[in-house]
């Protein structure tokens, strides 16, 4: 137990130190921007990992909640006169409500069937966003008003680096907290054996729903942060490919590993940037690297590497 608590605080300290130290080696503001994108993707992935890695339920439509968060901060101030910061919370609330309402019926499904149902949800939300052009600007997207907090205008890639970094720290802390609680244990229990979890009194439907709502709120907040940061938003952020990207981050980084989601996001966001030097072979190489990584690290990057290290340390 002692070791676990230390491990949790150690993880947070290392992450905080990394966020603080990285700007020292950044040669240009472009790097701040890429790093912020990593933090935002990692935040969404950590939430999805609570659903997939902990509770063992798949969601192939998670970008829907990302999109709702993003469009909430775009539409709220532009059409409804809601202050930007309040729109962020409204978006999260809306995502939670949608996850709750849709989750109740579809979380009864299992495995592939659940995957298809969540995929349907994702497609539906993306469709609404790209067709309701009066509100959303349609396929062209729409501008997002700058976030202002107590007269402080949050702008600039270095500012957003710190804001998204702070959000990621908060999200990491909460996800790590959850692990060693009755709720976290209930998630992991129903993942391994639903029937055994039920007979010791775990209300499986309720906990699946909780995990789904938590994951939706994470994605929504990440979406809002990205929209504010970019000052612009388009329907791709809510689209199927983005859902797949989030699932890829979670699986590549390591199911059930909070740190894994951060590493997965770092790899999947920065790799395309690095690979641009290969021009037209960029996507080919990206796919190849992911395939090779999954073959040699089948539990995901972080669990596989830490397993390797742990075995070395013992022998």
């Amino acid at each position, binding site marked *: *137990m002692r070791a676990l608590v230390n491990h949790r605080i150690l993880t947070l300290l290392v992450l905080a130190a990394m966020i603080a130290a990285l700007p020292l080696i950044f040669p240009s503001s472009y790097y701040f921007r890429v790093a912020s994108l990593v933090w935002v993707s990692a935040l969404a992935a950590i939430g999805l990992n609570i659903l997939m890695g902990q509770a063992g339920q798949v969601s192939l439509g998670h970008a829907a909640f990302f999109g709702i968060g993003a469009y909430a901060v775009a539409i709220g101030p532009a059409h409804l006169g809601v202050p930007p910061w309040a729109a962020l919370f409204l978006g999260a609330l809306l995502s939670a409500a949608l996850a709750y309402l849709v989750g109740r019926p579809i979380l009864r499904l299992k495995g592939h069937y659940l995957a298809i149902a969540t995929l349907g949800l994702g497609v539906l939300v993306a469709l609404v966003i790209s067709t309701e052009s009066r509100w959303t600007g349609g396929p062209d997207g729409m501008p997002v008003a700058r976030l202002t907090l107590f007269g402080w205008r949050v702008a600039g890639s270095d500012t957003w680096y710190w804001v998204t970094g702070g959000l990621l720290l908060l999200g990491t802390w*909460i996800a790590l*907290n*959850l692990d*060693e*609680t*009755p*709720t*976290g*244990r*209930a998630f*992991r*229990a129903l*993942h*391994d*054996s639903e*029937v*055994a*979890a*039920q*007979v*010791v*009194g*775990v*209300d*499986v439907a309720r906990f699946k729903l*909780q995990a789904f709502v*938590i994951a939706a709120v994470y994605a929504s907040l990440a979406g809002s942060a990205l929209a504010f940061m970019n000052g612009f938003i388009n329907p791709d952020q809510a689209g199927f490919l983005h859902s797949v990207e989030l699932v890829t981050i979670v699986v590549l980084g390591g199911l*059930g590993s909070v740190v894994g989601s951060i590493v997965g996001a770092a790899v999947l966001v920065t790799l395309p940037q690095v690979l641009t030097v290969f021009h037209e072979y960029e996507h080919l190489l990206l796919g190849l690297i992911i395939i090779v990584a999954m073959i040699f690290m089948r539990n995901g990057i972080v669990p596989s590497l830490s397993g390797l290290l742990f075995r070395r340390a013992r022998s």
Partner: protein
Amino acid sequence: MTILKATDVGISFGGVKAVDGVSFSVGSGQILSIIGPNGAGKTTLFNVVSGVYVASRGTIHLADEDVTGLAPHKLAARGLSRTFQNLQIFQRMTACENVMVGRHLREKCSLLPALFRTPSVTRQNRETRAAALDLLAEVGLKDFADVPAGSLSYGACKRLEIARALAAEPRVLLLDEPAAGCNAVETEEIDHLIRQVADRGVAVVLVEHDMKLVMKISDRILVLERGRPLAEGTPREVRDDPKVLEAYLGHHGAREAARA
């Protein structure tokens, strides 16, 4: 006092009557064993009683409350706990965490304090772990507390399931073949454990193929054959019942046994 009472319970799967008109009752501190040849419907009966399957007929009462058709987690909240014949261990959790999940109903489980890890959550975690460690010691798994449950031996997993079921502090405990695949020493330990549990006032319902164990510890025995009740009584009565011998040994075998 009768705690668990099943009356005329039946369930069919596509025309096959897996359990057909079975009744039994068990009081606190009693051990009732359910025996019968393979396919007699013992595990199916367990699944009906614990809410995993919904009975197509009959009623189940738990402490005078009609609980027919309630979901397993609601039955657990009313004091019914069970183990599984085919192990249902939380493989990726440690042995201790498995038992801690068993304490689920005894824990406060609200989301917000969990997300922010308030001191009350940490305190409760400490208490739950201490209780889980006590139970692990009781089933002889103390040294394996922090080992992933997936790497435990078969016999150890069987005992881990019992510890997890006991963690809920049940009034009724259903044990589905707790001694299957255990060697003589382990069976002895399980025998001892079941008695201890019953002595504390828990009603125990046991499905088991190890006849030595069944005859030794049961207060009453219910014999099933092809989903129907064949005989019921004390171990002595059941052992001497010609119908039971026939079900197990066949017509010819029963005559041989009677002569011997």
